[in-house]
């Protein structure tokens, strides 16, 4: 950390130890490389509601929500009680528990087009498996995806660079978001051999503004898939349950063949799921699926509780309103100080960006200053709202943003 103050002393000490024994020190999306070294904490200790505390005792209003999972807020009592109750009976057995059946039934009842569900632990488990199911079902090889999209860490599409060989991506082909000509060109090039199109409901590339689907975009993709017998996979891992409790496709007026969930499925407990159409059931039964902890019941019990609460409390509407309040407030404050910001992405997963900021320095400085004041704003990754963010938290955050804008203005950033 290149900070001169003492706010992150313990984080620094831990990182120094980590760097000795862990590649990257902290790897993956939580790596300091992806955020703001010196302005972000590295290690966290505890959390409650929409707030958390780093290892140095600094307090933050959390706009990352664990990068998505904490849809109801940290340590939600009903969810935690359900998980704890299940864990008191058993943590990891030789067999699945009854809750697995209940959860599959619950999810299939929520997602209209689906007839079956399977479970894993991470989003990557599900997207990689869904790709295989599509290939098994169609007996084809090619997978089409959107450039710069994220579907996990499988060699087919990891954003990392190391350890890959050309053959890993021989059958993976990119087209551009909201560009039907690009999609059609890609489709034409591989016609007859395309097993699946995999997409997120909206486009949320790292380091860039999010993009919503243009009118008719999804419908065109859906129609092409139907016509060509291609499996349409909706990667709803990041957005799932924040846009619509029945799957994000409901918002945009189309229906996929497979849908992958993770993050918000169990409010922080490790669980992912893929749901599919009846027609893909046989293919799904032929693609092997397992993992050391995949039958563990507490996360499934947590998910049952989480889903029930989300239904009961109309989480989608609440998050939309709170996200709108935050985005509208930030944009107005920006204008007040002479900065033009634009809200990108849906309100529940917002990502505001500066209009004139080609080198990202303004974004980085703004997010760093607000984070320093106590609300964690990631400069390069979309944010997440939770049920625990109340009007008072949004107002406190806006006050911090006001100070940050004022400072930037004074310093000519």
């Amino acid at each position, binding site marked *: 950390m290149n900070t001169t103050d003492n706010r992150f002393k313990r984080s620094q000490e831990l*990182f120094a130890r980590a760097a000795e024994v862990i*590649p990257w*020190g*902290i790897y993956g999306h939580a790596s300091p*490389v992806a955020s703001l070294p010196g302005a972000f904490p590295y290690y966290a200790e505890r959390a409650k509601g929409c707030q958390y505390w780093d290892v140095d005792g600094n307090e933050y209003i959390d706009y990352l929500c664990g990068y998505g999972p904490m849809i109801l807020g940290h340590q939600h009592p009903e969810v935690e009680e359900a998980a704890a109750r299940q864990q008191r009976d058993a943590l990891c057995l030789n067999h699945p528990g009854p809750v697995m059946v209940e959860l599959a039934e619950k999810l299939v009842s929520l997602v209209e087009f689906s007839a079956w569900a399977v479970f894993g632990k991470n989003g990557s488990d599900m997207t990689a498996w869904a790709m295989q199911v599509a290939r098994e079902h169609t007996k084809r090889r090619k997978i089409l995806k959107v450039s710069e999209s994220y579907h996990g860490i499988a060699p087919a599409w990891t954003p990392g*660079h190391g350890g890959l060989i*050309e053959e890993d991506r021989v059958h993976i082909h990119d087209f551009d978001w909201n560009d039907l000509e690009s999609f059609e060109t890609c489709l034409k090039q591989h016609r007859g051999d395309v097993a699946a199109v995999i997409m997120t409901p909206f486009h949320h590339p790292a*380091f860039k503004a999010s993009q919503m689907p243009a009118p008719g975009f999804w419908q065109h993709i859906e129609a092409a898939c139907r016509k060509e017998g291609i499996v349409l996979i909706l990667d709803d891992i990041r957005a799932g349950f924040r846009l619509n409790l029945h799957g994000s496709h409901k918002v945009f007026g189309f229906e996929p063949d497979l849908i992958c969930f993770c993050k918000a499925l169990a409010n922080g407990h490790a669980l992912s799921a893929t749901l599919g159409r009846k027609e893909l059931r046989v293919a799904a039964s032929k693609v092997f699926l397992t993992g050391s902890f995949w039958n563990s019941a507490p996360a499934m019990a947590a998910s049952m509780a989480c889903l029930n609460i989300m239904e009961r409390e109309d989480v989608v509407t609440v998050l939309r309103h709170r996200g709108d309040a935050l985005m509208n407030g930030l944009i107005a404050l920006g204008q007040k100080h002479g900065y033009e910001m634009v809200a990108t992405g849906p309100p529940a997963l917002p990502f505001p960006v500066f209009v004139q900021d*080609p080198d990202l320095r303004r974004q980085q400085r703004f997010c760093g200053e607000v984070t320093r004041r106590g609300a964690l704003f990631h400069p390069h990754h979309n944010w997440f709202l939770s049920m625990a963010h109340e009007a008072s938290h949004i107002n406190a955050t806006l006050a911090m943003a006001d100070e940050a804008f004022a400072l930037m203005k004074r310093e000519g950033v």
Partner: protein
Amino acid sequence: MSRAAPNPAVLSRLYLDAVLPCLEDLAAQDPNARAIMGNTRASIALSILGGPKAVVSFDRGRIACSATSNDMPSLNLLFYTQGHLNAFFAGAKWALPLPIWGGWRIDLMIRFAKLAARLEAVLNGHAEVLATPEGRRLYARLSLIAAGLGLAPLAQGDAEAIRTLRTLPPGLAAFRIEGEPNSTVWFDYGANQHASGWSTPPRRPDVSIVFGSLGLAYAAMRDEADTMAAIGAGEMTIEGLIPLADGLNVVMERLRIYLQPAVTK
């Protein structure tokens, strides 16, 4: 981890535009190189028939490299093809160039051959070079300069690099080693053309990559550093347009593929 075969045209541009210019810093930093040059005042042109060329000028202990020169070179060396030049730089004894002017400057040719050997020893990290702190410093500086200057030839002709660059935002990236004067090397990735240089960048870089110490730069150039951990620890900074730096790092990896044959010869 691309194993796509090197493009001979790119390799020859790398030798002319990225490796040869390292002679400038070698002369500035290395007493051994200066001793080889002595008080020589002369210039050598290396050109490929119908293709690019480079002019290396010696002036009493200083070296300057350029793509052209208005003055008649003291020694004019011609290579018939890119492959001919590449083989020469890779050390093939059969690949001597045709001296079309100044063939009688045997002394100059000998000095140049010795300088080239010294440069090769440094850039390839020969054991005797890396045995001393000064040698490791030279290795780190020259490797960074070659890597930075090499970005433009790669961007212009290496299919793998071009594929990577297409995914990157345009911008100017500057690399330097903290505490090392004249160590800034930059690459300007534009929509239609690219440029690189070893000098003060022509404008404020969109992303600045700073190795916090010579030791870290050395380890990074040797592919022996966990640079991600170094960034977290504040030993290295990447400030600004991070995706550009990330992508250029991948492009620089291609340099190892191109210049590795010389190492393993």
